[in-house]
């Protein structure tokens, strides 16, 4: 006979304000099997846990139910509590009377009644719980970082410095990501390349880091500690081991009209190219869409001139398969397309540009060698108007509902740099709000206004149109309650950012959950912000939400710390809630193996006694508990009910159903 103890938590007023916790504890006392029922202000506190431990010992409890917050919050806590008191940790069930009850109901009677049912349901389940032992699985001591921007670079360096091997998979021909495209960085105005390229070089030279550039993740199998990843190494038509990065091919290539994506398409590049001077690896790549040889079979000039003999037009995509213990996702972002924002005239006017394009126009390695010249006629713009929140904070469906977070700061940076370099330029900024939380951030913005005389206009632009070669920016000035039109030479749009579109595929491969804006979901918004709900998968940078460089780097290092913590272990405790077959009933029909996503089920021929001295050999299912992830797909496929799931057995769920339904 089970001896159940019930512990009802007030969670301060979070539960107690809408659920009569004393009444719940009192009512539950008369439940069959319950020998102890108590309520307390904070069960998760030291004192609360002490109360549980004492009750377990004094009343010889065989199972406990804690009526508290979601099991996703404190199930682990209370399992440890039980274990400390000598009770098997799996003899604990949580009744979620906070998230699923007190927080969503207002009527006290109604909420109390529901709480009682929820606790009864948990009691019904715990009575059928059985002590479980966690198994073990080995940890592969190597990490995969998907994405070679600053987030991926930082995470890889930190993990590698701790002595673990790391592979960076980058879909582009070089690592560096968006940060490599930036000119200066706020709030200290360091040159972006000056602080990024040393880190890129560190990656290349680190003996523990392997950079797989121009590569994409194709397939992910396995689970935390034991991921098996198939990586596609796209054909770059240049032998990475031979290319010396001399760039003679770039000079000789006759097909020079490809859009230079690194410069946001503001100038052209040859079909064979190295994306930028500091690229890592410093190896050329051929754009097959642009290369005359690859398209027509004629040309081959680069091959002729390549002293290293690195050009290989026959190269094909290849695949490598590697094992990893942990995966960091750092896939980054892109500015949104502006198709839905005709009012700003981006498509019609060359001199309406995005902020990322401005970065390239201001960069010494950019298309204008760092001299600010406007794209249409190459002249110095005298009046520049910035428009903030282009596509951000937009719930109309045209843009993104969230704040892109970085635009206020980079716009202040741009305005300041322009006023610094070209004091004769007039700079206006249309803003809705200026958001500058962060160390030295507001000071930075105020400097733009106070020291550099940037004209900030509270209001939004309704229309940008071209009149006699001038860009007319019509907007409101809400402070003066006026409508104004500014004749400008250049208009810069602080375009919203969104996750890099390839994230969807990555998320699906990793079964990492994704939100409505395509940002990856973290395990807990506050307490587990760098972990994906999928064990062993960690999130760094904008793939998880908009953030600037300092934040991205912090998050990447946090990821690395989590990864190091994981890889430092030789073995992981595995979830004991796995499928278990009852051989006596198994038909050996193979249906369960057909639905198992992990290949955890195999079949063995086993001899069974039939009575009367006779035996029979039958094919029966066998589950590898280290591989089984405990989803339960097999349990439903099995017609005979041979397969059951520990911790979520059919009988347990049935009795929960009964407890809920009985009025």
């Amino acid at each position: 006979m089970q001896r159940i103890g019930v512990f009802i938590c007030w969670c301060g007023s979070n539960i107690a304000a809408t659920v009569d916790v004393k009444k719940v504890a009192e009512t539950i006392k008369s439940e069959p099997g319950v020998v102890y029922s108590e309520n307390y202000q904070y069960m998760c506190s030291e004192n609360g846990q002490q109360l549980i431990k004492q009750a377990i010992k004094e009343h010889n409890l065989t199972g406990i139910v804690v009526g508290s917050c979601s099991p996703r919050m404190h199930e682990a806590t209370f399992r440890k509590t039980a274990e400390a008191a000598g009770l098997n940790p799996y003899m604990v069930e949580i009744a979620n009377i906070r998230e699923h009850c007190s927080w969503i109901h207002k009527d006290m009677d109604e909420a109390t009644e529901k709480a009682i049912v929820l606790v009864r349901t948990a009691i019904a389940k715990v009575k059928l719980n059985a002590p479980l032992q966690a198994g073990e699985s080995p940890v592969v001591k190597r990490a995969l970082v998907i994405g070679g921007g600053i987030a991926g670079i930082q995470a890889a360096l930190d993990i590698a410095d701790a002595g673990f091997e790391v592979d960076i998979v980058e879909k582009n021909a070089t690592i560096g990501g968006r940060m490599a495209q930036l000119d200066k960085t706020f709030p200290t105005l360091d040159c972006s390349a000056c602080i990024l390229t040393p880190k890129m070089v560190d990656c290349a030279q680190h003996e523990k880091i392997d950079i797989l550039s121009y590569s994409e993740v194709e397939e992910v199998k396995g689970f935390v500690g034991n991921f098996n990843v198939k990586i596609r190494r796209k054909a770059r038509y240049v032998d990475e081991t031979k290319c010396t990065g001399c760039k003679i091919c770039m000079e000789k290539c006759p097909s020079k009209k490809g859009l230079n994506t690194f410069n946001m398409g503001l100038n052209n590049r040859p079909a064979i190219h190295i994306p930028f001077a500091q690229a890592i690896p410093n190896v050329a790549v051929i754009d097959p869409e642009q290369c005359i040889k690859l398209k027509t079979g004629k040309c081959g000039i680069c091959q002729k001139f390549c002293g290293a003999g690195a050009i290989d037009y026959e190269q094909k995509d290849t695949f490598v398969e590697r094992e990893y213990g942990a995966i960091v996702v750092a896939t980054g972002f892109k500015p949104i397309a502006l198709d839905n924002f005709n009012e700003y005239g981006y498509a019609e006017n060359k001199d309406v540009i995005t902020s990322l394009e401005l970065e390239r126009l201001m960069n010494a390695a950019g298309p204008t060698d760092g001299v600010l010249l406007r794209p249409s006629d190459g002249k110095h713009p005298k009046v520049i108007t910035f428009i903030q929140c282009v596509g951000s904070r937009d719930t109309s469906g045209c843009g993104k509902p969230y704040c892109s977070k970085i635009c206020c700061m980079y716009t202040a940076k741009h305005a300041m740099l322009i006023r610094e370099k070209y004091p004769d330029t007039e700079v206006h900024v249309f803003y809705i709000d200026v958001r500058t939380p962060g160390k030295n951030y507001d000071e930075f913005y105020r400097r733009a206004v106070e020291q550099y005389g940037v004209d900030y206009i509270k209001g939004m632009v309704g229309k940008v149109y071209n009149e006699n070669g001038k860009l007319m920016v019509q907007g409101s000035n809400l402070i003066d309650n006026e409508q104004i039109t500014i004749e400008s030479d250049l208009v810069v749009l602080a375009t919203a950012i969104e996750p890099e579109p390839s994230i969807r595929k990555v998320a699906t491969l990793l079964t990492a959950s994704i939100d409505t804006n395509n940002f990856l979901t973290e395990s807990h918004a506050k307490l587990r912000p760098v972990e994906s709900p999928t064990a062993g998968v960690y999130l760094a940078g904008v793939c998880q939400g908009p953030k600037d460089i300092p934040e991205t780097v912090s998050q990447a290092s946090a990821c690395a710390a989590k990864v190091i913590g994981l890889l430092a272990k030789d073995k992981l405790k595995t979830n004991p809630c796995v499928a278990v077959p009852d051989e006596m009933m198994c038909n050996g029909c193979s249906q369960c193996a057909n639905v198992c996503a992990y290949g955890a089920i195999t079949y063995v021929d086993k001899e069974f006694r039939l009575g009367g001295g006779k035996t029979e050999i039958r094919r029966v299912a066998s589950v590898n508990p280290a591989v089984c992830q405990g989803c339960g797909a097999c349990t439903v496929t099995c017609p005979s009910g041979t397969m059951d799931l520990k911790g979520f057995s059919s009988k347990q769920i049935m009795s929960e159903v009964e407890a809920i339904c009985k009025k």
Partner: protein
Amino acid sequence: MKDVELKMLERAKQLLESGEVARVIGWKKGEFYFDPAPASFETVEELGDFVYNGFCGANLSKYLIQASKKEGKTAIFLKPCDSYSFNQLVKEHRIVRENIHVIAIECQGKLDIEKIKAQGISAVTEVEEEGESVTVSSLYGETKLNKAEILLGKCASCKGKTHQVKDEEIILHEMPAPINNRFDEVAKLEAMTEDERFAFWREQLQKCIRCNACRNVCPACSCVKCVFDNPASGIEAKANDDKFEEQLFHIIRAFHVAGRCTDCGECSRVCPQNIPLHLLNRKFIKDIDGLYGEFQAGETDNGKTPLTSYTESDVEPNNALGGEAK
């Protein structure tokens, strides 16, 4: 038909005498002409009772679950529709294929004694089939009947003359073409209102006496231990306590065989209460065909079933009503 029977008997004798097989599974004479029963023959002497006539509707494949595990080879006579069940059982590793010798036999459609009796004929002594018509001899004389009217329910929706598996065949005459009408009755029910359907099934299922004949005869319902006999399943029930459990039993049974049921029709054939149980299984088959593409269980002896496979663009359950998608 007599010539087929003779040929079968002759072949059975050969196989047993030569020791090629240890036993032959076929039909033996019953008390009357119209009630032959499945039987296993291990000696030539036993074959004295061997029979194959218009009343040999029983599907023999299920007997192989036990027989194929015994010492020596087993020969079995399979009608075209029985061969689907055979394949399904091989697919599920219930039959050791190497231990079986399949003799594909001719079938001209099997007869329903109840339907003959309903025509006012009793004490049937012999039946002579002649194409579309049947001459029934009884103690009281001879009557000519239209064969289509006295076919077994399952034969009225015949799956056709193709055996899905065979090691040899005894086919002496042309066999009938398939009759593609098996979803007609299901569609009729679907066209009713919910209330009408509920009333229909209430009336049918309340006749159920839980004799388990449907379960025992069904080649798909061949679990080592049935969930209804297993206390750990949470749905153990040996008898119908109330109205709900009649439904529960039949719903779960139908779900368990969904994607595996070959529509052999044995459940309805053996039901002593004449409940049209095949209409339950055919609903699943119709929905599977409609929602996930045509699928006939037992057509092959390998591969996945519709319920153990999926596509990324499958219809959403909330929109799947009527099985009309795709």
